[in-house]
């Protein structure tokens, strides 16, 4: 197990290295012109450009340039020349917001999807199943910026049931934190609920016909125990994998729309604004940040998978 984890982590470093090389090339090498000018913001003065060129080593050879750039990214030593704010600080400020949004939404969509998927499978072919299927499809079809805007407008602005955007630190007031996040969580979770409950339903229906479920029944176990310990446990393995990957993807950029609609000021929204202004340092940093989370969650999923399915561990 220890070796498995160690090897997985080494693999993770390789992937991150590859991503960093690609990112470097995309931002610094492929576009024509002087990278220092592109980076320097609106109407820079000549000395400013010169300073940037020197600081980033754009006169050095490409390997040194890569090393300098990555050193800046990793140590959080980046400054946005548009806003004059340190990029590391901004990401640090946005991270708890993005993680709060992603984590809460992930828990919500997983919980609801298990309920929907299991119930759908038990009632397969009957009215409840068909009803939930339609609900799921509607959920999958609604874009988050649309449903988010509707919720914000009607539930937040018109009815005033929920705060109209904004964010409260968890450490300040956990209840208020959750209260402010309910709408964003729901908006983000709806798509995943539809998708996950469809996948879970079909997994459960496959598992229910397995021989070992018949064995469980022949043992005299109750229906609830059969469902939870034998059917659900086996049906959940692929879903948990999916869950980890989607969580990583949401943290690494999937929440951009939700954060923007609800003005949460998370990392995603920060990235979106930076892209809008062609502000290179934050874009560079948030790209690496996204890659890091996606790769990290991939590795965690593999490790958790080995725990959930004992047959994997041999490798």
């Amino acid at each position, binding site marked *: 197990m220890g070796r498995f984890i160690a090897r997985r982590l080494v693999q993770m470093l390789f992937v991150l290295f590859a991503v960093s090389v690609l990112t470097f090339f995309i931002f610094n090498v492929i576009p024509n012109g002087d990278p220092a000018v592109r980076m320097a913001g609106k109407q820079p003065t000549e000395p400013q450009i010169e300073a940037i060129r020197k600081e980033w080593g754009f006169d050095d050879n490409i390997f040194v340039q890569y090393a300098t750039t990555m050193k800046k990214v990793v140590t959080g030593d980046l400054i946005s020349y548009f806003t004059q704010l340190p990029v590391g600080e901004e990401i640090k400020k946005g991270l708890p917001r993005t993680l709060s949004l992603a984590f809460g939404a992930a828990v919500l969509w997983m919980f609801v999807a298990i309920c929907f998927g299991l119930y759908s499978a038990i009632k397969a072919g009957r009215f409840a199943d068909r009803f939930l299927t339609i609900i799921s499809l509607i959920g999958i079809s609604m874009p988050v910026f649309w449903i988010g805007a509707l919720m914000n407008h009607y539930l937040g602005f018109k009815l005033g049931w929920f705060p109209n955007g904004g964010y409260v630190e968890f450490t300040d007031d956990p209840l208020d934190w959750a209260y402010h996040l309910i709408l964003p969580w729901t908006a983000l979770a709806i798509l995943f609920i539809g998708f996950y409950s469809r996948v879970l339903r079909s997994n459960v229906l496959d598992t229910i016909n397995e021989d*070992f479920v018949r064995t*469980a029944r*022949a*043992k*005299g176990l109750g229906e609830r*125990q059969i469902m939870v310990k*034998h059917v659900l446990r086996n049906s959940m393995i692929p879903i948990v994998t999916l869950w980890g990957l989607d969580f990583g993807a949401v943290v690494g950029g999937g929440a951009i729309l939700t954060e923007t609609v609800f003005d949460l000021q998370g990392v995603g929204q920060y990235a979106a604004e930076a892209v809008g202004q062609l502000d290179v340092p934050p874009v560079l940093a948030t790209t690496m940040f996204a890659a890091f989370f996606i790769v990290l969650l991939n590795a965690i999923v593999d490790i958790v998978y080995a725990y959930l399915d004992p*047959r994997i561990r041999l490798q």
Partner: protein
Amino acid sequence: MSTPPSGEPLLTVDDLQVSFATEEGVVHAVEGVSLSVGAGEIVAIVGESGSGKSVTAMTVMGLTRSPNAHFEGTAHYKGTELIGASEDQLRRVRGAEIAMIFQDPMTSLNPVMKIGDQIVEQIQEHEALPDQQARERAVELLEKVGIPRARERVTNYPFEFSGGMRQRVMIALALSCNPSVLIADEPTTALDVTIQAQILQRMRELRDETGAAIILVTHDLGVVADIADRIAVMYSGRIVEEGTLDEIFYDPQHPYTWGLLGSIARVDRPRPERLPAIPGMPPSLSDRPEGCHFRPRCPHEFSKCAEVPPLEARVEGSPAHRDRCWLTPDEKREKREVETGQIGLEHKPAAEPA
């Protein structure tokens, strides 16, 4: 040869009928099967695929219940009627009183649960036993069915066992609450021949130790010859012949039984060029012939076969030997001695080398 069956039957199936509604119409899987098994007795249900033998066995356990299934008849176990029983009543019987071993040990155990936990789960379902004692019992059971280093292996997962070992685990699981009746549905079909013999040997020993009744469902008469006290031969949803092991093997009455017996490769007889086979295919379950179901494949068919022959004793002096064939016992004895390669049991003496 084996412990004699003691008086009262433990489990009595009476006129069981099972049908399933499918897209192609109603399928009558079982058409009026009656069967009983007493303590310490091993009864074999023999038949080919689709004969209804597994459905009969699983219906007794309530494992064929579904919205599309329709049941008639009764199955009594110690005063409980199982066919119409509620799911809660059945749960108390399943695993504790009547236990089942399935055909495919590779898929019959939960792949992500330790085998010890799977056994403990069953024990604790039926008995209020603390974890430690239940685990101790699981180890004992695994030792009893012949799993080496049982104490270590109790924490292994099913994928860490071979097929034969998994079937032993299944047997340990089935025995964990000392059931009075053990239903084994093709327990050796998925195993190779040496393992088959070991598993059967183990089942017979366990019967001797615990006095449990065993219903053995199989398509393999070779398996039956080793272990069964009584045999019921099923064909196309009906029992066509039943009797003791000796009655079936030495004086088979139904042409289908002759066919089954004739198609076994034997070492104590001269070997024919080709093993005889029963011509034709079993009838489709949804479209069976009128009268005797074996009629289209039977070389001895005559006019009376259009009527369903009742299952009754026809051989004088053997009241328990019953069959569904209109021929008289004398006609049968004459007809079953045929040329090598034809349907029948005895080969003419001429075929034997000097």
